């Protein structure tokens, strides 16, 4: 009896294990990626592949995606799909700019969070209390967020210097940045990583460049955003409230029968989701540009959602997704030719995956990987530049591929997107 039950249960668990890597594996994987990158850097001469400038740009481009993705995570973990992240982010940009313009950057951050949380509250009222389809509500909130921002700009920003119907006046001051002492020259110490990077030694300079990009000129807000990743993990997987919230996303009926207040959990999750999206918007305004501009979010709410799916509804994977998407963007900003080198990198990476599949005797996967690797290698050798439009949609095509190839391994919360009415358990 027990054997027949165990088999189907154990199988998906084992499959899941592939994706949730332990600490040592993460380190190994990142090291392998670095070695590959420095190989490609050395052979193609695309120095910006691992330069501190690229990594710095990538970091600041990743943070809004990371925050939006975390926002998505908080909503979907309590079972509410949040397509409205984009609209909440727009609210975050507008309110962030308003606070920054009136009082200064930190008050701007606070206002951005509040603006986003307002959007989250609306989404919670519509989806949880009224039970409207989550997608419909999210799409409406995107429309409403854009409309509200445009109306408010027209009324409040117009007539002030630098402000108008589509743009806010510049904010007062900026959030300070810091260099890590001993590594990147903070507190008057020598810039060790910077001097190592200049030598272009294989691997050593690459590691130095990446580390320097991560440790020099870091905004305090970036640090907070990154700290939110482990904080989210600890919250959901190590606290009572986190467990209750997850239980609502997995099985609201069971949660309610155990006395968990389902609606309250959903409200908390969705409001935090909006607040995080608002913070993402505020980051764009206050760290990125120092003013609000219409269309500033540029679909980042959706990419954040994509990063969340890429990360299999987990904070760590989500951060990896956001970093990946931010890196492609940052590289394109710094050195367009370096993107071409990335093709070789992808070819090598997929070739490695093919080897792994061969070792595990997964013939079909190996064949697919080999075909893809050869295709990228051909693309690399037959062309000299990657058209800019194509780089722009790297995150989106990656998401489609991940969903198409790995959807069997992805595990969203079981009751994600299902409207729930209180009393369903009774």
């Amino acid at each position: 009896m027990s054997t027949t039950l165990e088999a189907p249960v154990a199988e998906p668990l084992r499959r899941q294990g592939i994706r949730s890597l332990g600490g040592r594996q993460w380190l190994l994987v990142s090291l392998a990626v670095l070695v590959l990158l420095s190989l490609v850097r050395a052979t193609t001469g695309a120095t910006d592949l691992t330069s501190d400038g690229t990594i710095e740009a990538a970091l600041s481009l990743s943070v809004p995606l990371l925050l939006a993705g975390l926002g998505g995570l908080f909503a979907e973990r309590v079972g509410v799909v949040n397509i409205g992240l984009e609209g909440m982010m727009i609210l975050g940009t507008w309110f962030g700019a308003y606070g920054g313009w009136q009082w200064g950057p930190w008050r701007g951050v606070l206002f951005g969070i509040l603006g986003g949380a307002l959007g989250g509250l609306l989404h919670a009222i519509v989806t949880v209390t009224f039970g409207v389809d989550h997608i419909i509500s999210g799409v409406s909130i995107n429309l409403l967020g854009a409309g509200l921002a445009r109306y408010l700009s027209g009324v409040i920003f117009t007539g002030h210097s630098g402000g108008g119907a589509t743009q806010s006046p510049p904010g007062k001051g900026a959030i300070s940045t810091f260099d890590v002492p001993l590594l990147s020259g903070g507190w008057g110490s020598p810039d060790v990583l910077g001097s190592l990077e200049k030598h272009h030694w294989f691997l050593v300079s690459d590691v130095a460049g990446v580390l320097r990009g991560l440790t020099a000129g870091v905004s305090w807000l970036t640090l907070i955003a990154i700290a939110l990743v482990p904080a989210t993990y600890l919250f959901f997987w190590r606290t009572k409230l986190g467990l209750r919230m997850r239980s609502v996303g997995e099985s609201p009926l069971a949660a309610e029968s155990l006395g968990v207040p389902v609606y309250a959990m959903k409200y908390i999750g969705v409001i935090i989701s909006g607040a995080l999206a608002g913070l993402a918007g505020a980051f764009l305004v206050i760290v990125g540009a120092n003013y609000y501009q219409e269309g500033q979010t540029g679909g980042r709410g959706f990419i954040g959602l994509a990063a969340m799916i890429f990360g299999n509804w987990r904070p760590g994977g989500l951060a990896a997704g956001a970093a990946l998407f931010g890196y492609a963007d940052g590289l394109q900003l710094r050195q367009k030719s370096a993107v071409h080198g990335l093709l070789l990198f992808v070819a090598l990476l997929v070739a490695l995956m093919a080897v792994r599949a061969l070792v595990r005797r997964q013939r079909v996967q190996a064949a697919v990987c080999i075909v893809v690797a050869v295709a990228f290698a051909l693309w690399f050798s037959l062309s000299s530049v990657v058209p800019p439009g194509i780089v722009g949609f790297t995150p989106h095509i990656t998401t489609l591929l991940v969903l198409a190839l790995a959807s069997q391994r992805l595990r969203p919360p079981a009751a994600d997107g299902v409207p729930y009415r209180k009393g369903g358990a009774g």
Partner: protein
Amino acid sequence: MTAPTVRVRGPRRLDLSGVGYNAAALALAIGVAVVIGGLAVELSGHSALHAYNLMVQYAACNTAGSGGDPCTADSVIDIINRAIPYYLSALAVAIGFRMALFNIGVEGQYRLAAVITAIAGVEIHLPAVFQIPLLLLIAMAVGAVWAGIAGILKVTRGVSEVISTIMLNYIAYGLIAFILSSYLSGNTSNNLSSATPNLPAASQMPGMNRIFHDLGLLAPHDPDQISGFLVVIAIIGTAFYFIVERSRFGFDLRASGINPWAAQAGGVSSRKMILITMLISGALAGLVGLPYLLGQGYNYSSEFPANLGFNGIAVALLGRNKPIGIAFAALLWGFLERSAQILDLNNIPQEIYVLMQGSIVLAVVVAYEIVRRAKVRRAEREVAREVPEALGGAVEVTA
């Protein structure tokens, strides 16, 4: 033992009472939007009544408040022309909705279709009689292919069409930039422009003012043309009604939407239905950019109208996914956009129309949901009243 006789009421009666409920929901939603828009006007320091008065007058008569001018039909024509693309994109969304499929990708589908049609319209030289239908077909094919990718991903790999169509939107924007830049760089005569060359006369859709003039509906001096696409959407709207509401295919479609398992048990292949619906939705979406391309702008550039697809979702929701309802919703959208223009001339922020559009959608989906719950409760009460006597109280009602 004799079988219990249960008197079942026909659906007709329920439908009729449903109309009352829905009308109330719609009125409530528009009321909420009017209040929110009015508040927005008042907050900006103007009179809401005055603003609404201006809007209605401008839409009906097109005299910009100067009193003595005679009325012209410019506003009415403009409202109709603005409503046409919304109607098409809402139909594209609605056919998906009818079987619980969510095509958020109308935005990318119509823009990709428009840019390829714009190029095809310049490169192909046929008489107008063949050229225009051919361009319509090309646009529909491009839209269908782009939506079809999402359909294939859903039926073969189980990828949610919501996510895939959003991603395909962004991929389409990148492709459009790529297509435009490579086409324009190959076209030496047009080196510095970021727009495709203007379409030749054979690719341009004629307007319909002469027909309306002959019918006695328009004065001869009205300069703005009613788009010829009015005929196209009339045909498509009628076809939509008959296919979705009155055909075997439409029945399967709606059944799959309401209960996919029941439909499957009844022999409807859900995979086939998903794929066909996505293809039809994409084909309709492909047409959305054409009223502008073939009738107003004649080229594709960065100025090409955007957000028609996202607004189409709102219009479809407002129109309850029915061709007639969508027509009214599209006209409402056109009215709000056109009439808001007069506000700027009076220093009232015209952006309130976007605010009103957003709040109408949100209010209407909430109102429809409340109505749906009320209907369910009423149906439960009716069953409770009639069935227990027949079945000896075996049915428990929890509502």
